[in-house]
């Protein structure tokens, strides 16, 4: 008898894992993380309603869409998406190993890489299901401030959704690969997201192409905020690839790292803690 095809096996693992991910205690962490921007947006909305002069950026009255764009940059793109990628991506297989449930999955007639792919899909579904509503709530709370128009800004929201999904997929895949290869993937993940990427994006040259942020930032239509000297420097050295090139590169990153992760999982022995 032949094992079920890879796609079918992955979908079944996805079915098994999605519920586990959504209803686990980690979702509390996810909820707090994603609720933070919503609460902030609510506070901004309340303040802007009470304080008629509104908010000003560089001395100019800020429209809600600019504030929303800033929140996308500062909260979602630079923090939430990478941290979710590190948190879930590095733990796709490691969690099952730590919980000692990996044995049940690896002694089934499915390729081992189907377990990884299925869990990756579950991670993507889980994070997208939670991140996008958070972004939408922030959008509806913040954009109307300062005389902004939801209708006019709505197409950019759709673009932001696509960008966030691409980011979650890319970071998740990269850190899934890190998780399968490295003993301390969390440290490596944090160094990559909050050390390597911000540093290398400041430097001129080709090094920035060895990041996910370089391609992801090309998909963001909002203006990059100048909240610090680092951001100003980033603006100076910023090179923006085309949207098409970025999408292709991000897809290649996802496909390549997932393939490598699948290979690692197929060949690795997982020794459970006694």
């Amino acid at each position: 008898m032949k094992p079920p095809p890879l796609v079918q096996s992955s979908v079944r693992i996805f079915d098994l894992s999605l519920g586990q991910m959504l209803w686990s205690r980690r979702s509390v962490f996810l909820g707090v993380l994603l609720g933070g921007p919503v609460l902030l947006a609510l506070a901004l909305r309340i303040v802007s309603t009470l304080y008629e002069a509104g908010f000003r950026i560089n001395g100019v009255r800020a429209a809600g869409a600019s504030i929303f764009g800033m929140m996308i940059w500062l909260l979602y793109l630079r923090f939430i998406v990478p941290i979710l990628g590190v948190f879930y991506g590095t733990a796709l297989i490691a969690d099952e190993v730590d919980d000692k449930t990996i044995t049940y999955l690896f002694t089934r007639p499915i390729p081992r890489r189907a377990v990884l792919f299925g869990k990756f899909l579950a991670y993507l579904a889980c994070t997208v299901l939670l991140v996008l509503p958070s972004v939408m709530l922030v959008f509806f709370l913040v954009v109307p401030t300062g005389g902004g128009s939801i209708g006019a800004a709505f197409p950019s929201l759709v673009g932001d959704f696509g960008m966030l999904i691409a980011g979650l997929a890319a970071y998740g895949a990269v850190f899934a690969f890190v998780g399968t290869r490295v003993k301390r993937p969390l440290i490596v993940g944090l160094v990559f997201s909050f050390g390597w990427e911000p540093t290398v994006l400041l430097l001129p040259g080709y090094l920035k192409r060895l990041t996910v942020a370089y391609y992801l930032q090309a998909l963001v239509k909002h203006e990059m905020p100048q909240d610090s000297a680092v951001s100003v420097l980033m603006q100076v050295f910023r090179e923006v690839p085309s949207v098409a090139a970025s999408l292709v590169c991000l897809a290649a990153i996802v496909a390549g790292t997932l393939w490598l992760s699948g290979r690692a999982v197929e060949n690795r022995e997982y020794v459970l803690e006694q």
Partner: protein
Amino acid sequence: MPIHDQGYRRYGGDKAPRGQAWMVIARNGIRHMLGKRAFLGLLLLSWFPFFVRAVQIYAAANLPQAAFLAPTPETFRQFLDQQQIFVFFVTVYVGAGLIANDRRANALQIYLSKPLTRSEYVFGKLAILMTFLLIVTWLPAIVLLIVQLAFAGNFTFLRNNIFLFPAITVFAFIQVTLVATAMLALSSLSNSSRYVGILYSAVIFFTQAIYGVLFAVTRSTSFSWISFPANLAQIGDVIFRLPPKYETPWLVSLLVIAGVIAASGLVLERRVRGVEIVT
């Protein structure tokens, strides 16, 4: 008696006085971490900025053309700032599993069934993390001060900046206490050191990101009390007698720091127990 008793014999030697059990936990924890090559590498790397600064001080003292590199109190403040990245990684590396791993192995019950109080257990664990954090902050800063004295060949700098020694000590201890208690509290909340590491990272970066948004929108630094790194920076500037970076009153920052330490203590008091009390 020709045939000796081979059975169990009670220990009849000296025993350490009560209240020192935390030292056993600390000693073992430190030894365990020092046995890891990767961690030793991280510690060595954390002293790299010290060597750079030492060269700077040497050059300033011995080369007239490098006199502009002469150290000031701000040099030491900046040095401690630069060490923040190593403080973060050492905290995650050492601290995430301190209590989480014991919870995972159900070892808390075993620990607390010995003549060891909960306070001793917590102090022992704190001592492990604080030792390494001080090795990365206080120790290199003090050694840098001594290096400055050695290369200068006189006490002029020290006489003019006599507050530096207590400033480095106080700031390092505030920073290390805040970070260590917060990490230990988070570690007591979970069985997974990975989860704790992410939680800690989220707290640090998320608060910074929220402050970043508020600053970008309001152009005011008075919301800096939201960000943990900013609160520490504010206190650091005051201790080193430098103009504070943020508009937040330093007392507010100090209160936030004290509040976090107190909250961490409360969490530890609730979570470090031999048995879970289910109501």
